[in-house]
């Protein structure tokens, strides 16, 4: 079988302690559920010298109301718990649909929200055993000079997905991020030197290697839903080959604030799985003031799909994934308008949970 390399593994009992441990070693990594980190370790995709487990940090598993409205979700809350939490059944349906569709029930029981938001970018040239990556001469994200393990700094090796590209093209594959970006969430990062809050979408950068703006010594502590989140209607559509297990090859998070007569007063549409970062579709604001007519939906779907730049490094062919982006953005908006998903075909029926 495959075995992880030798390394040190410590349990922190508080976020503060974890932050201190992280600061002691530039090659330290946080371990939460481990469902992403451990398989990657066994494949030797990176080689931390220290794993700081936050499994025993109870504070990370709290969900609490924030003064002035809003809701704070600890980064250590399991995806299973989020997927069944009644507080999100209506108000943050996108989050529920996204977390309910991550991997399998067993993995969701262990995997955490923070872990899913910080999920390593994925690529069929990168998510392979060391021996396999040796056979392709390694890649930019895990070059030969690093012994085939990922480094924080880019090196000489190329990106096989797009050999001319100066940037790694590994794909952001988190389900919860596009859902939470659509919901307007922000995140709180804590380090030994203090804490900072930033909009979730700013946690990400469109670079397969440096895909998080979070520093290595920072811990994603909590996710905060904005004060007005209950006034939004939202959904999350996931595209994947099979109805379980698979990472998204497209995720559409859509959230709308609807006024009287169905006029859109605010809108956030986010895409995942189509770039190295989840993105907020910049034209989301163009929906404001409109009603969800078929024409408005089609026009917006065209605009949104332009931002999707899928490549040949995930499951399913990329021109097709681009085509479905348009279909899913339109369908997500139609669903928020009140259309029955059953009328949108069999793929639609399974793209949303809850």
């Amino acid at each position, binding site marked *: 079988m495959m*075995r992880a390399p030798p390394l040190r593994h410590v349990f922190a009992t508080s976020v503060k302690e974890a932050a201190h441990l992280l600061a002691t070693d530039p090659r330290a990594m946080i371990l939460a559920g481990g469902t992403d980190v451990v398989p990657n370790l066994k494949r030797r995709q990176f080689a931390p010298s220290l794993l700081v487990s936050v499994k025993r940090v109870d504070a990370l598993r709290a969900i609490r109301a924030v003064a002035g409205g809003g809701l704070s979700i600890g980064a250590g809350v399991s995806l299973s718990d989020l997927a069944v939490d009644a507080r999100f059944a209506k108000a943050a349906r996108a989050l529920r649909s996204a977390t309910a569709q991550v991997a399998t029930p067993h993995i969701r029981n262990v995997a955490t929200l923070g872990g899913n938001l910080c999920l390593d970018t994925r690529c069929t040239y990168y998510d*392979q055993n060391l*021996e396999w990556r040796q*056979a392709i001469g390694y890649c930019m994200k895990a070059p030969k000079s690093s012994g085939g393990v990922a480094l924080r700094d880019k090196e000489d090796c190329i990106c096989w997905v797009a050999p001319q590209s100066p940037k790694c093209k590994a794909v952001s594959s988190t389900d919860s991020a596009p859902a939470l970006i659509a919901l307007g969430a922000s995140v709180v990062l804590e380090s030994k030197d203090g804490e900072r809050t930033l909009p979730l979408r700013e946690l990400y950068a469109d670079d397969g290697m440096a895909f998080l703006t979070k520093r290595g010594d920072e811990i994603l502590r909590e996710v905060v839903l904005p004060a007005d989140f209950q006034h939004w209607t939202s959904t999350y559509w996931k595209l994947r080959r099979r109805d*379980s297990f698979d990472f998204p090859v497209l995720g559409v998070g859509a959230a709308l604030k609807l006024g009287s007569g169905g006029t859109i007063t605010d809108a956030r549409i986010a895409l995942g799985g189509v770039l190295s970062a989840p993105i907020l579709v910049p034209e989301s604001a163009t929906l404001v003031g409109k009603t969800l007519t078929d024409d408005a939906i089609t026009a917006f779907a065209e605009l949104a799909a332009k931002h999707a730049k899928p490549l040949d490094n995930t499951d399913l062919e990329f021109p097709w994934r681009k085509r479905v982006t348009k279909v899913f953005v339109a369908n997500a908006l139609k669903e928020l308008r009140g259309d029955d998903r059953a009328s949108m*075909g069999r*793929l639609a029926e399974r793209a949303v949970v809850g």
Partner: protein
Amino acid sequence: MNPTNWNRDPKNSVGKPRRRVDARARVTGQVRFADDLSLPRMLHCRLVRSHVPHAKILGIDASKALARKGVKLVLTGEHFPIAYGVLPVSHDEHPLCNDKVRFVGDPVAAVIATTEEEAIDAANDVVVHYESLTTIATPQEALATPEPRIHTYGDSGNVHKKVHFEFGDVDASFAGAAHVFDDTFFYEGNTHLPIEEHASLAIQDPEGKLCIWSSTQTPHYLHKALAKALAMDPAHIRVIATPNGGGFGGKSDPFNHEIVVAKAALMLGRPVKICLTRLEVFYCHRGRHPIEMRMRTATDKDGNVLALDLQTLLDGGSYGSYGVASTFYSGALQTVTYTIPRYRFRGCRAFTNKPPCGPKRGHGTPQPRFAQEVQLDRIAVKLGKNPAALRLQQLAQPGSLTANFMRIGTIGLGACIDKVVEGSRFRERWGKLPFGRGLGLACSSYLCGAGLAINWAELPHSGVQLRLDRSGEVTAFCGATEIGQGSDDVLANIVAEILGIPPFDVRVVTGDTGLTPVDLGSYSSRVTLMMGNAAIQAAERARDLIAKSAGEKLGVPASRLVFANKRVFDAQDPNVGMTWLEALHRAESDHGTLGTVGSYRPAAPAAKYKGGGVGPSPTYSYSAAVIETQVDPDTGWIHVEHVWVAHDIGRSLNPTLVEGQVIGSVYMGLGEALMEEQVFRRLPPRLSNALVHKIPSILEYKSLTSKDMPDVTTYLIEDPDSAGPFGAKEVGQGPLLPMMPALANSVFDAVGVRVDEIPVTPEKVIRALEAKSKRYGPDEFPTVDWPEPLKVAPPWEGGDGTAQNEKPRKSKIAKDGTRIVTP
């Protein structure tokens, strides 16, 4: 003593649905698979595999690995000068590569260390120097690139094998045909994906002999390969096949890792174990050959086939494996489903620098079956006939010989078609459903064991020994291998049926070359029929011994005694009888220790021409399926709504297990039809020489999950065939075959496009919808320089099963009794 027939109509356990005899062990986690085994002082082995696709080995530096504390031994090709292979005609593998590597994953060295971690790290320290050679990725490249040769044997260049048969004047039939259909197809390769990774544990036993536990479907062939590759007396080798956590053909070859741990255990005098990673299982492969096909069919005005002209081009990968047989199988069974008066078949297998292809469930036949069944659907559409009617009007005839001299037994196919047509209301609904919804029908047939063994020898293909204990327990010994399919249950069931005791009173000991009589292995759907017939013979011999003693005591003729409910009694007066135990004790007192044997060897095939040894079977099973799909025209997404499948089982020995096999075949077939692909990546040649498996993980190699599985309606057609035990036929492979064409035909009915390629994916549906031709698939069949045909006249044209233009063949008997025939 010939077996009598009076108990052949089952009265006891046969035919009754029941949990399998090993079910308790399985559901309580007590089955011990190869990787569950652990022994004191056990060492761990890790293979160093090639990271280049085609190269000469210039040198191997293991000094760094050997310097590690826990490393006990490093083996290389020098330790293994003798080649082996499963087929006598292609002994082209070495346990560790000798002079060159042929694909990324070919094993070059082996590290044996005290822990698995140490073995992994030490393997990473072994440095191999290579000189790269031109890499061949496809059979088309192989045809165009005779040099450098991947192997120095084979028909020519990088062509492993070419065959050409003509049964009757096919061109004349085409010239006189009312309609000619000419289509090209491609079937992508796929792999078995057993959940259990291959594992082996070898020891030098206290007598100094070799013993190996291994997850193998064919302990007998592994036994032979070990004896050859290690130059050992086979009497000093014991192979124990552990229960397989899935095989599907992927554990049918003797494997390099098995021979390596055996050698290491003998050299070190300590147990040596290996458990492959999932990546390595993809490298072992031996799965479905990718095949390009061209199928031409001549019909009369009603769509009755006059002649078939099939060409296949197989991508064999880097070694022979079962490939020569696969090549023949890509044409051999086209004739046993429908009446085909004349037939031409040309097949070619090429070597490529990829993991070797071999037998996967259906072995070589699902690909041409897909082509034939999709083309029949086209014929029906063109001629305005219902596809079911078109098939029913030209079914092969029971008891007949086909154009290529396959002898057919019973045929339950007509009943199979009727069942699925009725269940799905195919006649009423086909061609009439709203756009986006469709029905597809397809049929198939399959072997119930190969008529000729891989190693031609006039010896039984299966043997069973019974030991009848005073306690009432009966132990059945047989070399057959439990790979999850339920062969242990078949053995217990048949013995129990004949002796009138519960199957749970039978202990089965199987798959152990040191204890059990030879059975050739769990492949080619042979076990139920061959082991079953051997078991009947052994059990009837035991019953006759007991009946003689019991009859004398009871004063009843032995032939009138019935064995049932753990009693032996007079059929005319059930009150006159005795318990099973009394009868057993009486027989032991009369005859001494009770034990019997039975064996089975199929009758000689009717096909006597060279190559006619592949395809004959004691009888054939038949299946039919209808699949209903919903296809989304915007995305091409295919949703399988329902599957109706009927299987001609002859007789169900245990209907619970038969139905399980049918549903398992549906599951595997839908995976192939919709998503499974063993595909490779070649990097830009100016930047890299790499040729690697694209998705060697159980996450990214997609097969259905339980959530993707549709509801299945199963019908079992029972028309007992005298060749099978109690009339039973196979069920392990046949029901898979109609899935792929039925799915493709259903997509056509739904949205009016033909995807002539497996898998049928949403991307291909969209491309077909956007194409002028409303089709997606290969445009032409590659040009192959075919040899002269071997001409065999069909039976109805005066043929006797020999070829009209065949040179006499020489044969010799090898030391181990194998008859080797050369052209």
